[in-house]
């Protein structure tokens, strides 16, 4: 049984179709990278899985139709790490991470000992215990990113949807964050679906890539299959060179030929 199964899933904003007839199965424990140009529908697809937008077709989570979950049940199974998380500057790190326990609390209940322990574990895993009482407004970008991941972790959800999880970080922090995410995934057996822009990094961490273009799946397979020069040039409208470095794939932009190729009839 796959962790996530999409059948004929389409989303439109008003009359504009954004995601069209997606068929996709994500295995338990996989790291699937959603790639594709801006506006390809990556974020919208994640929002449909998280039930933030209405869709047609069917999405099953561990075999069960996503519409049949209550909000809280869904939140115990699926956690979201958004592209631009709102991090209220007045909250302390531990208060923020404790918000991840919301799906386990009754409507008017406050956190109990178990919730504080779960949050403390998440803080420890992300090396945030020392920052527990610091306010979010005083953290660096990398620390803030870890706090957001810690909140998702405290949620104890088996499926984690990540939207450009490292977009705001420099290359070193990107590596650290992805390395950490991969470790956490291995330890807890989590399933990741992550929209990613950096194809080289995506190839290093994801075990499967799905290339979206104009709301449809254009390619699906291992990084080696999907990161094909011709395919990328066609769908990203870019000029790139795909290299193999130390047995891994690197996508390098190439300057020069693109513009003339585009303007010559």
């Amino acid at each position, binding site marked *: 049984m796959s962790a996530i199964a999409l059948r004929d899933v389409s989303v439109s904003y008003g009359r504009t179709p954004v995601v069209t007839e997606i068929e996709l199965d994500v295995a338990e424990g996989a790291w699937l990278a959603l790639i594709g140009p801006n506006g390809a529908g990556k974020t919208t697809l994640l*929002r449909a899985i*998280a*039930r*933030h937008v209405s869709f047609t077709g069917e999405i099953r989570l561990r075999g069960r139709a996503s519409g049949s979950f*209550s*909000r*809280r*049940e*869904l*939140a*115990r199974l*699926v*956690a*979201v790490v*958004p592209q631009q*998380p*709102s*991090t*209220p*500057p*007045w*909250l*302390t790190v*531990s*208060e*923020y991470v*404790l*918000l*991840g326990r*919301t*799906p386990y*609390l009754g*409507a*008017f*209940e*406050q*956190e109990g*000992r178990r919730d*504080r*322990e779960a*949050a*403390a*574990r998440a*803080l*420890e895993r992300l090396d945030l*215990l020392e920052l*527990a*009482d610091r*306010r979010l*407004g005083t953290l660096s970008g990398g620390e803030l990113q870890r706090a957001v991941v810690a909140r998702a972790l405290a*949620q104890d959800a088996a499926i984690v949807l990540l939207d450009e999880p490292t977009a705001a970080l420099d290359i070193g922090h990107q590596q650290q964050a992805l390395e950490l995410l991969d470790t956490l995934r291995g330890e807890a057996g989590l399933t990741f679906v992550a929209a990613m822009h950096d194809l080289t990094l995506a190839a290093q961490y994801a075990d499967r890539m799905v290339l979206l273009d104009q709301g449809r799946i254009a390619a699906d397979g291992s990084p080696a299959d999907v990161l094909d020069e011709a395919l990328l040039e066609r769908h990203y409208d870019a000029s790139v060179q795909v290299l193999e470095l130390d047995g891994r794939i690197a996508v390098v932009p190439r300057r020069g030929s693109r513009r003339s190729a585009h303007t010559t009839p």
Partner: protein
Amino acid sequence: MEAASVRPRSLSSRGLPPVWVWTGVAFLLVSVVVGTLVGPIEIGVADALRSFGAKLHLPGVESTLGQTEETILWELRVPRVVLAALVGATLALAGATYQGVFRNPLADPYLLGVAAGAGLGATVAIAYLPRGLRGQELLPPLAFAGGSVAVVLTYAIGRSVGRERDAATLVLAGVTVASFFTALQSFVQQRNSETLQEVYSWILGSLPSSGWADVLLILPYVTVAAVVILVHRRVLDVLSVGDDEAASLGVNVRRARLVVVVAATVGTAAAVAVTGLIGFVGIIVPHAIRLVVGANYRALLPLSIVVGAGFLVLADVVARTALAPAELPIGIVTAFVGAPFFAIVLRTGRGRG
């Protein structure tokens, strides 16, 4: 790692820091004492306490106050102080709540058109009702009705437009409804210019000295409002991370926002109905607390109640005594303190809001 090896103790900062609780309570107590004792007729602390003891039927305690002083104390001063405390607490709590659900540091209790609607109701009462029925009898219910109608309209418009994201749409709908009701109110007022003075003084806000009647009138509304908001205090913290993220944490964002906003609005409308429009309390009190304590909503909401109550009691003391025996509209006092304070809040940056 075993759960036992981590220290849940380090995660205990979810409640109110006790020092701020006591500071807030002390501030409220001092305000109440000052509000009770200060006035054209001096009443000593000892006399007031003895009279209070006698009211409680404490054995061996006799009031040392004369009949007149006794009446002034229990039928004028105390109910007025209690009313100020209730209204101040409600406006501050509603302000903090609006700022939370709309994630807007400038949101205030009058945001959704309550003030404009209540203003229209009050103006109609003053302009068209025979003099005998005005004032305590029909003005508060009409102001309350006007405020409620305005908010219902705001909600209806906001809903019909914004299916996806409520917060900003609702605020815009509030602005629309408010300007419509303000136009109606100005029209009524202009047609009945002889009532200008009366309408104007209502708009500036003032606490009536009408004994316990007004306290009893608003008590049920403000109590229900406060209880509903306080049981949602954790939800307000969750809402502070945004609609989508709150939803992915399992919160029914629309329903939570609706319930809390309705509660805050009912409380505000009740308060406005008896006191007129008292501005700035709903903005300066929560922001002052944020600046000093930097609090999450679980701490901010209870503190807003206590500090808001104390603040308005003190403001009323100033209103009563600054130009004694004349009385200054309390709205002028709160704005006089509020405007400069607000400038400071803006300077220190809106990040904390």
